[in-house]
């Protein structure tokens, strides 16, 4: 479990009071045994049976009580001080529901050394954000029917509901890219983007909000811009 181990280490290195929930979504690579061997180092270890990232995130939200919630995928890393920086931004901006920092993509070379290959950028990635728990009361939980792009769907819903963002200009996520990333190699349709649009059409049809009057913030500013350099 070298990647998960590194990820958990980056969480512990935050030196921030934490309630950690690890959700093992039906992996067959020994993650379960590894998590049991941690002997209670995490507050919650939940086993799901391959229900997808939305269900896993929701399980984590339900299992925990903390006022702030953050998500970190098994192979990504939080640079030191991430949670402190984001929590400070939320506490200083009571109107904000989400604090968000910048992302840098990295891969590891043959020697295991980190190589960053994008400048810091701001875009959809749940790992770079800290959420006020109340946001999920406002916009609902993650859509468990969305296998991918549940993050885009969530961000669009937050935007539509004018959930404010507190943005910090600090890198808060090291986003690992490797041949195993599930967002690679799929065509546009398979990628889930269209489904997020479909959900939006449904919300407009249901009259949940009127795109001509809301939201109040500029969409591209809210969502950010993907990194210029692709992997």
């Amino acid at each position, binding site marked *: 479990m070298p990647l998960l181990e590194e990820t958990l280490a980056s969480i512990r290195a935050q*030196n921030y009071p934490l309630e950690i929930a690890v959700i093992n979504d039906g992996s067959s690579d020994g993650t379960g045994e590894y998590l049991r061997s941690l002997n209670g180092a995490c507050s919650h270890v939940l086993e799901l049976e391959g229900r997808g990232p939305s269900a896993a995130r929701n399980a984590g939200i339900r299992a925990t009580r903390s006022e702030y919630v953050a998500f970190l995928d098994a192979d990504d890393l939080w640079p030191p001080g991430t949670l402190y920086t984001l929590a400070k931004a939320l506490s200083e901006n009571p109107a904000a529901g989400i604090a968000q920092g910048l992302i840098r993509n990295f891969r590891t070379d043959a*020697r295991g*050394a980190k190589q960053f290959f994008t400048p810091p950028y701001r*875009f959809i990635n749940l790992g770079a954000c800290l959420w006020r728990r109340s946001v999920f009361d406002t916009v609902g939980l993650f859509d468990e029917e969305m296998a991918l792009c549940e993050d885009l769907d969530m961000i669009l819903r937050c935007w539509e509901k004018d959930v404010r963002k507190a943005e910090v200009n600090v890198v808060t996520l090291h986003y690992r890219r490797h041949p195993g990333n599930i967002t690679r190699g799929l*065509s546009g349709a398979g990628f889930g*983007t269209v489904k997020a*649009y*479909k959900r939006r059409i449904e919300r407009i049809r249901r009259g949940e909000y009127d795109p001509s009057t809301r939201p109040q913030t500029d969409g*591209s500013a809210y969502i950010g*811009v993907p990194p210029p350099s692709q992997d």
Partner: protein
Amino acid sequence: MVNQGFRTDEPDVIYQMFDEEVVVVDVRTGTYHSLNGVAGDIFLALGSEGATAQQVASRLTSKYDAPPDTIHSDVLAFCDRLAAESLIVPVEVPSAAAPEAPAAGEPQRIPYLAPALQTFSDLQQLLLLDPVHDVSAAGWPNLPSEEPVTAATEAFLCRIAGAHVIFEKFEDETVAMNVASGAYYTLYGPAEDVFLLMQENPTLEEIQKALGSKYVFDSVDGEALVRDYVGNLATAGLVQLEPLPPDASPARDLALQRPGSGLPFSTLSLQVFDDPQKLVSGTAGEGLQAGKRHYRIGTADLLYAAAGGEMVAVDRDMGVYYRLNQAAADVFGLLRKETTLEQLTRALIQKYEIAERDLTAAAMMFIWHLLRMKLVTAVAAEQEQPAPALDWSTPDKRLPFTRFDISVHKDLAELMRPMNASAQTSPEPPVGRSAQFRSMLHRYFDEAAALQGATDSCFDIGGTKVRVRRAGSNDSELETACAHLAASPSTPAALTIHVWDCAVPSTDYFLTLVLEKLHANWSVACGARGELLDFHSESIPVIYHPGPDILSVLDVEQGQAYFLKRDASPLPYWEIGSPFRYILHSWFGARGLQFVHGGAVGTPQGGVLLAGKGGSGKSTTSMLCVKAGLLYAGDDYCLVNPETGFLFSLYNTGKLKGAEDLERLPELAGHSHNRDGFEHGGIGKGIYFVSDIWPDRVISGFPLRALLIPQVSGERDSRMERCSPGEALLALVPSTVAQLPAANQSDCERLAQLAEKLPAYVLHLGADLEQIPALVRGLLD
């Protein structure tokens, strides 16, 4: 036979089928559409391969309960609609055999509803939701507008015209390039302000508003000037104009990238750069074919080292160093010889997976950048030179291309800059003159020794015996730095260093006179790095150090060196702490051992090299580790064998900056050796000899296990983080070669070998310094 048909415009159009509808997203514009059952069937029947309206209609006829004529005319009309939305594009499709006619009145046919398309344009500002696409900084191209918009149109929206426009904002101006035409432009003042605003897709009104925040338009018709200028940008293909949607939001307040206020508004002009280097011809059309110019690295004194796919280049004359990624390093490699842009591109395209046009554009911009930095010069060449040899083997599979990246570092400028900026260059002195000078020095030393007496001490340094012969003065503080390496004087030495000064004139006054003249006229007599022009040669370096007034001379072949001081004034602390640096560097360099700027601590089984520029925490880290029981091999300079990774200690010196360091290391208080140090009321660092304080904790060498790069982090905890060989190069090369006048390309190659070999870590020094020795020890275990 082929027929006119349509196909879905993938990959710019993405879609997915749901139970009751098909959702289609045009990722170029952010517009998305819902297609009802029949409409969705038409879209899916066209598919990415394409089909004719006839083929689509007959498919539908078999499914839906409606007259074939109705279906056919609906399909034709709906295809027009889809094409108008740019969701499908015309294509020629082979005519297939006519599909079987449906049996009349088949029961499974379902009710027919005319095809319908519902369009949503509320997400047009999110033009980027498909990360599968390469998104250029310039944004997606957008739909062509129905009516041509010109700068004379009442209201319009501007945006960068597409991926063929590349630009970079420099300190003083922005350079924009139209890759399609090859023309490029320099933009500054209000012209630059407006151009940079284009990234925000501004309206005419917003541009004027933003300019108004910075400039005063006295009697100038600002609007007319802006219209003219935007029109020029559009004609140049840099910007495109679009109609302003009727429901556009009110004008935003856009911030200028170079803010200001109250400036007089001059004029707005777009200038095709009048290119003295003729990077490209500048004539539209000729564009990329042009440029039979040759480029080459234009700096004489450029040292470079490469490891782990990265390169560090040091330009000591300019006092700067550069870090280059793989692609940029490849360009550097090629530009060591005169190379055309075309040859450069041809060489790189064999290695990298990138479209040739994109590579040419990126290479043009990079060379332009290098020209501006004066790293590269352009030469007009009458005839084509042979293409440069590749110093890489063409890989089986091309590598992904990451854009050329070069960063400039000036933090070591003070250390690196030539001490003699006005130095003359002069040819090497005639053969034999250096040797004559050397033997003259030898004679004078012998004379001084005969007159004042001489003492000998022997050291085992880097696996060889080094003898220090001192004439006159009893003050042996120079030898204390190497005291831990003392050896028996009986064995013959490979190198003898003669140390004396001219305070007591010898029988004839000649040498004293030479040193007096040198002291007064060194800036004329010496080259950029202190080499004494009349006598210095590659094989016998003769280096003068004007501050402490020391002449260092080495004859590698004879194994004789001379360290001659003009007077008897005390040596500055750095000479006491690390004596004979220039001599030892050249001597051991000739034997394949590298003089390294760095500290080292460890155990007999293995240790770490601590690298980084002065002030990064090397001394503190080394001293704390020794205090905690690790063995000491140096805090500033060491010798390393890059082949075996074995480190040899040179000096057992430790340096402390001030009284606060003594609080952490109270054991050292009162032990500083130098009169100019803070413990004696001076302003210099305090020099301590570890063998004085912890005699059992100095070691003559050990095999290296890792390279550590200390960095003060400001965090509470200290921690270690693995880093790339490129980081190791950056820590090792510039600060080592900056301090050694005779450093050359071989030093870089040995340092690169070391960076490639040793695993490197950044050691983040937190507030809790006590953790550091444990971290180092953890690494060694």
